[in-house]
């Protein structure tokens, strides 16, 4: 990635305990921070949804017993790109490729849609997932603000 060339202009670091009430807190905080790039309502909604999915994954999958912290970093670049990194020190994902498949879910009895990674992939421009079993998962997503109008 041409991260250095882009020029970082602002950064937010956030650490939240893995409680479901923080899904709303996380997406609202990220949205407020991203507002500096003057995104459209659709772009902001896309980012909020992607953040909500990643944070929910930490709460539901990474820390199934409820104890743990979620680290969120949002970086704004001069070229109007937003980078959101959501990290946990939870149980990790043994097969990331499989987890990213649409409709894949480990949840046999509940009602999870298995669409979390699909949403992140579709609502952001780029999604990178790195995970190690027993160590944790890092989800990095980028989106270019203003590119959406040209694409649609």
């Amino acid at each position, binding site marked *: 990635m041409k991260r250095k060339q882009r020029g970082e202009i602002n950064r937010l670091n956030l650490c939240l305990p893995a409680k*479901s*009430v923080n*899904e*709303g*807190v996380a*997406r*609202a905080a990220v949205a407020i921070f991203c507002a500096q790039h003057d995104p459209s*309502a*659709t772009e902001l*909604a*896309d980012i*909020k*949804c992607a953040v*909500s*999915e990643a944070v*929910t994954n930490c*709460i*539901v999958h990474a820390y199934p017993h409820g104890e743990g912290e979620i680290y969120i970093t949002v970086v704004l670049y001069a070229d109007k790109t937003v980078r959101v990194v959501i990290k946990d020190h939870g149980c990790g994902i043994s097969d990331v490729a499989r987890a990213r498949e649409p409709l894949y879910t480990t949840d046999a009895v*509940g*009602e*999870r*849609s298995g*669409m*979390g990674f*699909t*949403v992140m992939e*579709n*609502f952001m421009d780029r999604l990178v997932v790195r995970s190690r079993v027993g160590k944790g998962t890092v989800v990095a997503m980028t989106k270019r603000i203003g590119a959406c109008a040209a694409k649609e």
Partner: protein
Amino acid sequence: MIHTDYGYEIRARDRLLCVYLYGEIDHHSAVGLREDLDALILRERPKRLVLDLSRIEFMDSAGLGLLMGRYRLMCDLGGEMAVEKPNERVMKILRLAGMERFFEIGGRRGERE
């Protein structure tokens, strides 16, 4: 709005149950909504369930699970389900998951088709 605020109003007549949901649907709110909706459905035993999403400002994939679960319950009870008036952003995730294949999505708001 920092926390997840949500709720609903209901109207039931002639075995038609309309639920007007409002606020945000995520994994946090879906748990309570699921329990409430199922209790309502089992009490009212409607032939048709209509979920009005016109006042839903945010929905992520937990909402997809919530809708699919209620759709399955309605099918099991021999009824049908429809979703009404999702805003453009909610419609985007419904479309991504291909929800139109399962239930009717009507009265779309702000649709540019």
